[in-house]
């Protein structure tokens, strides 16, 4: 395990626990060369796609904020690579890599950020807040997050509870940031899942900061993984910038969940090299810290070194992957840019299954931008009454 850059927090010399009976290193050792290159592909795709998003953001084509996972690609990609397609993963804002591994496509991500009408949420939600879950064979198995931090932990407790109840051979994985561990939802959710022995892996991505708040102001615990004992579950810490280490630790936790062992907690040590979002100038970060992590502990650089030195991968092979990635992102950008923004009226559909659509409010009926009267149309006072226009009290009394 690589040592941490100076000035940063120290990485642990050894994993803290072990998801017995699996032993550390056992899972990663089984990866094929092809799989190892695939890991590289996903990390590169994550980075390139985000870089493209930055360019689009500067062109004001991204509608809202832009969130980066620069320097964290290994933890998202490696951990999610431990899942099968039938498993369900719940990402957070820095888990673009995990979503790609789970089948989200660059064009979906680009359309989401650009709020396009044919984006996965049809322009309703922002950035990577989208998902695809349901039947094992028919869906890719990732769940769209909401903003309030911690809430996905209880939800994933329920998703995995359903696996347990139905005897399905499926596992769940939920990511939380170091900051999100302070929320009540995290606590309630992980405790609930633990006591219900849900097949769930909880991954804490410790990237040193929650927005501007360093981990030292988030908790006094020495390690986030120390929280595991309080829930009666095993916990392991791993080097989040070593993609094979993150794969390994997660794969073992997933195996434990799959054989009915219940919840495991993983803490992946990494570092957020960009601000909370693109607008954040990181003035609160000690001088030199970012640069050291970039220079000494970039997950892609580290993996490239490892692939080329230990695994005899040629630089040309990697360059070919890079080129493929660029081409995919280029193509996705073209498609996303060409697609249309949503129609205003689409806003009205699907708050409930029944009724499937709401009516526009009366002052919008026949109003701006092609808004037409709904089935329940009226131009009476305000609303929804089939008879509001035709009848009036006076005429009724006259009759």
């Amino acid at each position: 395990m690589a040592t941490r850059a100076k000035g940063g927090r120290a990485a642990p010399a050894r994993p803290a626990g072990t998801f017995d009976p699996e032993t550390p290193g056992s899972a990663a050792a089984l990866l094929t060369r092809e799989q190892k290159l695939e890991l590289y592909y996903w990390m590169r795709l994550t980075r390139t796609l985000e870089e493209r998003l930055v360019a689009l953001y500067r062109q004001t084509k991204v509608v809202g904020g832009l969130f980066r996972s620069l320097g964290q690609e290994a933890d998202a990609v490696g951990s999610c690579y431990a899942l099968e397609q039938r498993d369900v993963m719940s990402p957070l804002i820095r888990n673009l890599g995990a979503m790609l591994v789970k089948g989200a496509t660059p064009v979906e991500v680009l359309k989401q950020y650009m709020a396009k009408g044919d984006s996965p949420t049809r322009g309703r939600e922002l950035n990577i807040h989208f998902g695809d879950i349901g039947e094992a064979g028919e869906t890719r198995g990732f769940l769209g997050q909401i903003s309030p931090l911690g809430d996905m932990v209880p939800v994933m407790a329920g998703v995995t509870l359903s696996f347990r109840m139905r005897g399905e051979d499926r596992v769940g994985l939920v990511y939380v940031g170091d900051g999100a561990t302070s929320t009540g939802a995290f606590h309630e959710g992980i405790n609930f899942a633990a006591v219900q022995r849900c097949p769930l892996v909880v991954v804490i991505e410790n990237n040193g900061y929650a927005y501007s708040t360093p981990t030292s102001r988030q908790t006094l615990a020495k390690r986030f993984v120390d929280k595991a004992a309080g829930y009666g579950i095993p916990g392991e810490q791993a080097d989040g910038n070593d993609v094979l280490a993150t794969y390994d630790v997660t794969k073992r936790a997933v195996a434990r969940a799959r054989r009915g062992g219940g919840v495991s907690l993983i803490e992946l040590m990494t570092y957020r090299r960009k601000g909370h979002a693109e607008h954040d100038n990181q003035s609160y970060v000690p001088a030199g810290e970012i640069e050291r992590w970039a220079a000494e502990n970039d997950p892609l650089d580290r993996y490239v070194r490892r692939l080329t030195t230990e695994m005899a991968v040629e630089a040309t092979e990697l360059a070919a992957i890079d080129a493929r990635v660029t081409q995919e992102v280029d193509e996705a950008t073209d498609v996303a840019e060409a697609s249309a923004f949503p129609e205003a009226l689409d806003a009205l559909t699907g708050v409930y299954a029944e009724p499937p659509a709401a009516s526009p409010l009366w002052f919008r009926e026949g109003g701006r931008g092609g808004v037409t009267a709904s089935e329940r149309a009226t131009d009476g006072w305000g609303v929804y009454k089939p008879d509001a226009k035709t009848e009036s009290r006076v005429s009724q009394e006259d009759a």
Partner: protein
Amino acid sequence: MAEVTYLEAIREALFEEMERDANVFCLGEDIGAYGGAFKVTEGLLAKYGEQRVIDTPISETAIVGAAAGAAHMGMRPVVEMQFIDFIANAYDMLTNYVATARYRAFLPCPMVVRGPSGGYVRGGPFHSQNPEAGFVHTPGLKVVYPSTAEDAKGLLKAAIRDEDCVLFFEHKYLYRRIKGTMPAGDHVVPIGKARVAREGSDLSIITYAATVWKALEAAEQLEKEDGLSVEVLDLRTLAPLDDDAIVATVKKTNRVLIVHEDTRTGGIAGEITARINEMAFEWLDAPVLRVTAHDIPLPYAPALEDFVLPQTADVVLAARRLADY
């Protein structure tokens, strides 16, 4: 058919729906071996086992969140809040996660959150609440609050079958005080339809839950003492409101009194008044008036609780004023 209490009617609905659909399961605090604080779920564990009747840790956010997750995957969870007051502890999960799931993510979230609600029982400020207004205000949630045993059963069955999240408020004052005869067969009462609890022509009282009974008592008295014919509309469903039924009664009597047990400011009487203004202003012969609780955290001592909550005498007085207008 034998008469059953409001509470037993709810229990019947749970048994029948668990029997009908293997995806229905219950979760909450002390609902298993103990059968729930009010014994609503008594017998469920014995019949359906620990997989489908889950005693949870004290963590309302986790319970609601887990229900949502399971609902996404095709289950039909029925959550019990030990007292509905503790739904406040799941407010974020309900309003931000559950209510928006279908709209923002096209995720089905068919689940029920039910629990003992309301006052008149000396429960003090944290075991007597009527928190419906905050949820009626949340697009994506449905809200039901029955006043009769028949509706309690029929609406709970409808709620469990609904494709969206339904908050099902049970009035604990009615649990053992009200009885009804259950219709034979699969008795389902549709969500979104109000019920004329008493026909009348001089003025309308629009209400729901325990105050339906106060309104009926008042109507009786007004008929006897004042010769007034009072219509009582039991909303039953608070979201979505039954606009047709509301408008129909306004057009019939031209005078409306709204009665609810919830506090006044921001209670749903305001919403109903606004809708009446918009939909049937011309039919009003008098202002829409409200009889509600005072804007006060509900106190414990009987004299205080009785003062703060709306009583039959208040309804009578207000109805008289309205009739005289």
